[in-house]
């Protein structure tokens, strides 16, 4: 942040997105069933500073991918605000101004087999944002730009003539990254960019993303369910459960001094690859349906520290150790903060 101004680069405020998954009204009328609303994202506040990597972790159905799609405007939010570099994204503005804002944020998708149009040549896939935003006037310049982008993701300009099916999963994800970089964005939303890849390829992509971030001063919103990857790449981490943020903290703090019981539970699930004999407590239960989330703190049915207040009152996010945590037990001091260490084993 320059000059300590309070304005964050990306700011989500009370963000909500509900999906109507009701059966058609005729079926509802005949069978007497009520409307069914999935509260995919239910009041999320996030601030992301310029140049940092903010990660969202959680299990499937926690709403992390929906947040990603809300931020880039693939869905309109049901409620709440999305601010990008001081601009309220919901505000009506001229087509040119909207394009100017959109150009500055792009997205990398999870499935490298579905995110590239199989009928297009790689050159055209990468050139599409350049053409759409009118960033290049003549053909020679366009070719140079696409060639540079391909080189930037460690492919060759000659690869532009091929079709996506001629590439491996990792190479496709590089193409996807090149397309995302084509409009010279400042902010990249990465939705599980490595979870469909093999580990050795995952390392290539993560290294590439770190390199690009440093070279191009990118800001990342990184969505993942893989805690080890999140630990490696993030500046700060937000943990989501059933559409809500339960804890936000700087990476090191989150992993060594986790506060929310759900965070602790998630950390327990990381396989012990270093074979340190780290203590792992068994975890019970499964994520409930987001259609009828539990009352109060939505984690209370699985939480060993839940009491009556947790069942009835939704906890607020409280600032603690450079982050926030939404937990009554922590607030009341019933649950002491625990220290964790991970032996830095040489592998």
């Amino acid at each position, binding site marked *: 942040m320059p000059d300590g101004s309070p304005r964050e680069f990306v700011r989500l405020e009370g963000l909500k997105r509900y999906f109507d998954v009701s059966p058609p009204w005729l079926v509802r009328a005949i069978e007497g069933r009520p409307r069914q609303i999935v509260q995919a994202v239910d009041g999320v506040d996030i601030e992301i500073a310029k140049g940092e990597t903010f990660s969202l972790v959680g299990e499937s159905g926690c709403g992390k991918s929906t947040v990603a799609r809300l931020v880039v405007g693939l869905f309109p939010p049901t409620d709440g605000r999305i601010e990008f570099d001081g601009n309220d994204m919901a505000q009506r503005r001229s087509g040119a101004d909207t394009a100017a804002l959109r150009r500055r944020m792009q997205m990398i998708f999870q499935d490298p087999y579905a995110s590239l149009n199989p009928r297009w040549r790689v050159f055209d896939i990468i050139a599409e944002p350049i053409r759409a935003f009118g960033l290049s006037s003549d053909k020679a310049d366009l070719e140079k730009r696409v060639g540079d982008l391909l080189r930037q993701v460690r492919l060759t300009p000659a690869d532009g003539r091929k079709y996506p099916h001629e590439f491996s999963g990792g190479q496709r994800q590089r193409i996807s990254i090149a397309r995302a970089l084509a409009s010279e964005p400042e902010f990249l939303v990465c939705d599980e960019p490595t979870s469909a890849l093999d580990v050795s390829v995952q*390392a*290539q992509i993560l290294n590439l993303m770190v390199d690009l971030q440093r070279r191009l001063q990118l800001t990342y919103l990184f969505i993942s369910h893989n805690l080890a990857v999140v630990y490696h790449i993030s500046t700060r981490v937000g943990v989501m459960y059933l559409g809500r943020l339960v804890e936000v903290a700087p990476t090191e703090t989150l992993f060594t001094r986790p506060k929310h019981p759900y965070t602790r539970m998630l950390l327990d699930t990381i396989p012990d690859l270093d*074979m340190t004999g780290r203590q792992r407590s068994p975890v019970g239960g*499964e994520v409930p349906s987001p259609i009828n989330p539990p009352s109060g703190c939505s984690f209370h049915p699985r939480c060993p520290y839940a009491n009556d207040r947790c069942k009835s009152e939704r906890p607020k996010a409280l600032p603690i150790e450079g982050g926030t945590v939404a937990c009554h037990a922590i607030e009341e001091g019933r649950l002491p903060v625990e220290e964790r260490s991970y032996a830095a084993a040489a*592998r």
Partner: protein
Amino acid sequence: MAAASNNPPLLEVKNLRVEFPTRRGTLLAVDDVSFDIAPGEVLGVVGESGAGKSLTGNAIIGLLEPPGRIAGGEIRLEGRRIDNLPYEEMRKVRGARIGAIFQDPLTSLNPLYSVGRQLVETIQTHLPLSGSQARARALDLLKEVGIPGAEMRIDHYPHQFSGGMRQRVVIALALCAGPRLIVADEPTTALDVSIQAQIIALLKRLCREHGTAVMLVTHDMGVIAETADRVAVMYAGRIAEIGPVRDVVKHAQHPYTKGLMGSIPSLGVRTERLTQIDGAMPRLTEIPKGCAFNPRCTVLGQRCMVERPELMAAGASRAACWHHDRGGVGQPVAKETVNA
């Protein structure tokens, strides 16, 4: 397992070859793979997609999808050859002696029958039990795999179970006839992390209690490290390295295993860059001469380009590498340039 050396192996796979005839020629998807599993042992088989690990598992349970076929070698279960059994014979072996668990629990369960009925049917196919005895056993199995309220849940249909619970039912189904070996193909991949840990713990407990051996096929090194006694690392249809899990994880001998371990982000040490193996596994049509790993290898020698290494003793493990003694344990095999 220490017992592995003096007991006869439960499962012996010798020089197994699986091939796929295509119009561009025959692809060798599993190439001369040999290993064995001792009674009660958990053998992890790990590798990237296309390494041939699932095909090896499918070949053992006799469920290779045509046109894939076993082209050579033999598979013995308790000394008896099972790779050349007629379909009906193999079906009996598959239920009674070998249990199977697949990635997607939904495909292993019939959506039209209650789980109880499926369990009872499977039990009665393989064991001489009456209806009520079989149902009692089904109930016991459901309780054993940790289904809460098993008495009520036994009459529910698969879609009424959550993903984790379904996978538990599939495990119960695999255990019906008290098999000696379970082949589990990516049993946790489709599940959430917290459920993964539960299923792994369950598998481990069951094996210990029943003395069942497990061949655990997965791409997830973490699952292997948690569960397996020994691990086989597969690359391009062959075993690159096989050995006790602790040795393979901490003192990998094959450059591929080393790279693989290094590319997994580690907790506790925040490094700027991960170790990476450049390039990608070759397609089956483009497997290079000599060692299949040679285009990506960092400790390459002349011999690697021409002669294919067989598994040879390397530390506590066996590795298919001419240079397993070079490069030193724990040294990074990083090379900074990438070009796939």
